[in-house]
């Protein structure tokens, strides 16, 4: 039994490489541990070699191993070009250019503040605020936002034909899509004005003037957090508010870019219950929010031969007739010395057959989950579990070949 590799609802729908050729931004998303970073790097490799594109892989994971694999000392906030010989060494022809960068959240935030602040003095007042430090360094949401902001900045340079983004391991995968809008709301919201109003009325570092509407809030908040803390918050936001216009403009632009027809999303998942559940939810949300859902990548799947009927028959034969088969093998001429002991050979045969049956159970589960996929994009590609781990360019190239289908999985 061999499941179809792609399921197409639209015969004119593109293949994965056609998708890459047609788009300028590919955002990869999926839950933790499904192999997003590897798929992102492999996609970059495909685009730089097969399509001859100048491509940037923007990753958010601390991927030291990936950096090493790509022949880079480390992936910094700045984009580094992957040396051509890294590709030629594994027989790939670098017709384009492969670049890679890793998102440094703190650095990106600092850059953003420096470029948006009224003057240097204000910038440093913000950069040294303890709330600023906490907000930018520790919050997942700020990570999401800055990833999208960085994407926008890189795209705006027009330097790359394609940018592949490996999204942050967000707890709720949808969060980062909301990040630009939330950030705009956050800095421009009426709540913020309402919260900082008493401070503004009294001037900076002056006594708070609380109006009737906000009094109950402040009563509780003071008892809970202490007045000083609230004042810190207010001061921080008063500083930030002066950069409001710049921020909202950027956030809106980022959001527009994500919805642009040049941007597409690919959901990466394994065929395990929890990640798949998450992936399906993600597909649904993307469609509901009018984002372009370009592809689904089923990663680390078991090879189809585990579902082969002949394989199953042979496994049963090995189990049932292990002794007889082993005796035959021992008698065969020229018998290998390792096959001379029929007891040992029988034990090995049983182990081999049992292992096949074990993996066949998992392969069946995967096939069932695959067939049950409710709402999938036009392009569905499968990348089988590789023999070796993805630690080098060769392995990335192997993933890349599966993505574009030059090797049938």
């Amino acid at each position, binding site marked *: 039994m061999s499941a179809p590799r792609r399921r197409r609802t639209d015969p004119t729908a593109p293949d994965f490489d056609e998708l890459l050729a047609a788009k300028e931004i590919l955002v990869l998303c999926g839950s933790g541990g499904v192999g997003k970073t590897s798929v992102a790097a492999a996609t970059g490799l495909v685009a730089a070699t097969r399509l001859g594109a100048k491509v940037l892989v923007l990753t958010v994971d601390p991927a030291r191993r990936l950096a090493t694999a790509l022949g880079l000392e480390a992936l910094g906030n700045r984009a580094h070009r992957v040396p051509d010989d890294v590709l030629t060494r594994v027989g790939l022809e670098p017709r384009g250019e492969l670049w890679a960068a890793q998102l440094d959240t703190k650095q990106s935030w600092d850059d953003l503040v420096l470029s948006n602040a009224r003057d240097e003095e204000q910038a440093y007042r913000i950069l040294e605020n303890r709330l600023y430090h906490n907000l930018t360094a520790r919050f997942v949401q700020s990570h999401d936002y800055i990833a999208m902001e960085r994407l926008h900045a890189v795209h705006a340079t027009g330097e790359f034909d394609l940018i592949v983004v490996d999204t942050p391991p967000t707890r709720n995968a949808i969060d980062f899509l909301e990040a630009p809008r939330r950030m705009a709301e956050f800095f421009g919201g009426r709540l913020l004005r309402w919260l900082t109003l008493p401070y503004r009325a009294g001037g900076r570092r002056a006594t708070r003037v609380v109006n009737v509407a906000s009094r109950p809030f402040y009563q509780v908040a003071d008892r809970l957090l202490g007045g000083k803390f609230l004042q810190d918050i207010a001061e921080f936001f008063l500083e930030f508010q002066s950069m409001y216009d710049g921020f909202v403009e950027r956030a809106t632009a980022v959001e527009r870019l994500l919805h642009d027809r040049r941007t597409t999303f690919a959901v990466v998942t394994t065929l395990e219950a929890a990640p798949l559940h998450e992936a399906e939810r993600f597909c649904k949300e993307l469609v509901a929010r009018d984002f372009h859902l370009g592809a689904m990548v089923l990663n680390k799947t078991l090879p189809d031969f585990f579902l082969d009927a002949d394989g199953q028959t042979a496994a049963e034969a090995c189990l049932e007739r292990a002794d007889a*088969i082993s005796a035959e*093998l021992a008698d065969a001429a020229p018998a290998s010395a390792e096959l001379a002991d029929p007891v040992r050979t029988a034990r090995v045969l049983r182990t*081999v057959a049992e292992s096949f049956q074990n993996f066949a159970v998992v392969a069946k589960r995967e096939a069932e989950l695959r067939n049950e996929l409710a709402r999938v994009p036009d392009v569905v590609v499968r990348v089988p579990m590789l023999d070796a781990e993805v630690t080098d360019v060769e392995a990335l190239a192997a993933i890349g070949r599966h993505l574009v289908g030059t090797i049938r999985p």
Partner: protein
Amino acid sequence: MSGVGLLDRRLLLFTGKGGVGKTTMAAATALLAAEHGKRVLLVEVDAKGDLTAQFERAPVGFTPREVHPGILAMAMDTEASLQEYLKLNLRVPVIGRLGPLARVFDFVATAAPGVKEILTIGKICWEVRESINGRADHDIVIVDAAASGHVVAQLGAADAIQELVDVGPIRTQTGWMSDILRDPALTAVNVVTTPEEMPVTETIELVARLRADVDVPLGTVVVNRVLPELFTRADEATFDALRDDAALERLTELAGPGVTHVVDGARLAVSLRRTRAVHLERLRAEVDLPLVYVPYLFVRTHGLRVARMVADALDQELSS
């Protein structure tokens, strides 16, 4: 296990990289605890509804509900936690007028780091204290905790908030939380991992960070999805001999044409096991915590049956 047995503690947290099986481990440990006669409160911190799915149940809310005999489950909700806190501690007179607070809450909590974390860990610690004082319907609190990075912030929130907030009840009331979290007789933070490169690297880093940044007692490292070793060295030589062209041809005659798939499958299993063994070695060398191994489950289903199987595996490991 050295010292106090895992299930004799009051608070067990399960953290680790995304996708390694934290939820399954928390659910399986809850099953195990319930079987040992404990009344369990199972807390899902990043509410996705996956935790109750382990018991074939619909998602739960902030109010605990029984999902299995002896197991109550609840989903963390920081806003509900704040309201409960206000009700219990401040006796805020006019709850109806808290409207603006509810609206501003999310906003302030985002702006003021540590607030959401303290409400999460505070609620957990409160449930532990209630159980110690015999005022709760549970004896042990088991937490399906946040992933690696975030859990450090949560566990360290009590200390962090003391740096940020100068006065107020939150500051004065974080001391007892630290007492619970630091007591090795009460608390154990367990890290779940799989024998793969990134999860192992993250585990090594997380253990170091937990030790350096937050002073919490560490329990075990649970290594999930460990593939079986198929052959002894001698048997592997025989397996290699079977893959020889002539032998494979003969084997095809004897067992049928599909036998190459069977042999290929075993070869894949051997190489998967081998690449993972390297990471297991690294984990053993760099983490000086008890390691508990849970085998890869070759099953078709998920849900309660899987939680049950994992619980059995854990039981064997913990009692050995």
